[in-house]
């Protein structure tokens, strides 16, 4: 795995490269700033598999660097891990919003480093496996492969506001107790996703997800919401803000927007995607559970028709 590491402290870069070597990752290139890193990505001719960046750097911080890297087509999906001091954990929010995949805390712990990089390795291996499969058996078979992975969360090509579902889960784990309780999640489920999935090619199905994602962004009218595709036709949104609109209103707005595509879907003999917006899920003060539980509850709500949900409305994790 080719790794690009960025930090303004040369000692830390040596330490990181040394630790990565100890756990079996010897192909590490280091850069002292975001500007140098971008120059390396643009002009070195090297394609990196993973980027590790310090969060707190002068001039260009980790969040700004992440946003700049994501603008480069070749690096839209490359895992980017932020490195931050424990005291700066709350500053990684911006980096996650910009497209970071995960974070590692300073001082480095080799067990944590091994676990985080191992996760990246497995992610890359899975992507390579899919790419190789598509190359070997052609587009038709690739579409079949996507069918077999209906439940898999994917990063939708062209959906700029979407982050990886894994990154959303990782972000939740960074929140302290106080912010955890002020954060809510709600999900938006494409009710006829399975029907479209079974009728359409893999590429058309992914295009449909992109259409839904775009309508969600339009309907939300705010950028203070993180959006990820969780698989099985369900998007998850997370925010610390009051959106000022009910799930019903949001659902109507998205579905009206999707009807604009009616002729396009009709040409493909497909139904227009229609969504259901679930109730917002929050963490309960008196019954702390694992942070990612609110995502599960949000998805559960969106996947359940309103008449079958519990009477008290809001989902509490």
């Amino acid at each position: 795995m080719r790794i690009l590491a960025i930090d303004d402290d040369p000692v830390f870069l040596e330490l990181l490269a040394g630790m990565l070597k100890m756990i079996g990752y010897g192909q590490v290139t280091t850069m002292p700033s975001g500007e140098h890193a971008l120059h390396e990505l643009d002009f070195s001719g090297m394609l990196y598999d993973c980027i590790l960046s310090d969060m707190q750097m002068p001039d260009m911080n980790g969040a700004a660097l992440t946003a700049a890297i994501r603008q480069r087509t070749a690096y839209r999906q490359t895992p980017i891990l932020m490195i931050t001091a424990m005291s700066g954990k709350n500053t990684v929010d911006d980096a996650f919003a910009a497209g970071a995949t995960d974070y590692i805390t300073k001082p480095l712990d080799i067990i944590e480093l091994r676990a985080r990089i191992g996760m990246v390795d497995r992610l890359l291996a899975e992507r390579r496996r899919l790419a190789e499969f598509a190359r070997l058996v052609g587009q038709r078979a690739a579409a079949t492969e996507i069918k077999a992975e209906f439940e898999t969360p994917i990063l939708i090509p062209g959906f700029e506001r979407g982050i990886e579902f894994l990154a959303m889960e990782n972000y939740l784990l960074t929140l302290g107790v106080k912010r955890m309780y002020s954060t809510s999640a709600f999900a938006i489920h494409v009710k006829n996703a399975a029907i479209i999935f079974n009728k359409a090619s893999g590429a058309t199905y992914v295009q449909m997800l992109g259409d839904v994602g775009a309508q969600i962004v339009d309907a939300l009218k705010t950028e203070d919401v993180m959006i990820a595709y969780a698989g099985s036709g369900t998007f998850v949104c997370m925010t610390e803000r009051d959106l000022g609109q009910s799930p019903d209103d949001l659902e109507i707005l998205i579905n009206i927007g999707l009807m604009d595509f009616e002729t396009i879907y009709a040409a493909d003999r497909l139904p227009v995607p229609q969504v259901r917006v679930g109730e917002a899920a929050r963490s309960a003060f008196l019954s702390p559970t694992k942070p990612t539980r609110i995502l599960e509850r949000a998805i559960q709500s969106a996947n359940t028709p309103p008449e079958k949900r519990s009477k008290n409305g809001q989902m509490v994790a």
Partner: protein
Amino acid sequence: MDTWAGHQPEHPLARAERLFRTMAVERLDTLSSAWVRLDSGQNIREAMEDIRNVAHKIAGTAASLGHAGLGHQAAEVERLSIEGAGKSDVLRALRPLIAGLAELLDD
């Protein structure tokens, strides 16, 4: 001050350890200079910024190289400077950090 990485030239962390010790000279100078400015009340903001930057860097690497005490002292100085602690508190926390760096250079 003993570290496993520094005493084994072929160890993957040996280069980091050597660089840490080399940079300690410059960092000790920066902290000592900032100490004087802070103590005398001159350019306090710049002094605090220098202290925070150096402490942040030491806190991020020292413990991983086997200098746990130094890492802990640096983290405390960084915490105080981030939280806007008073001059006397920062000076008090800075003293063992400067002493620890000086000891590392004597080693």
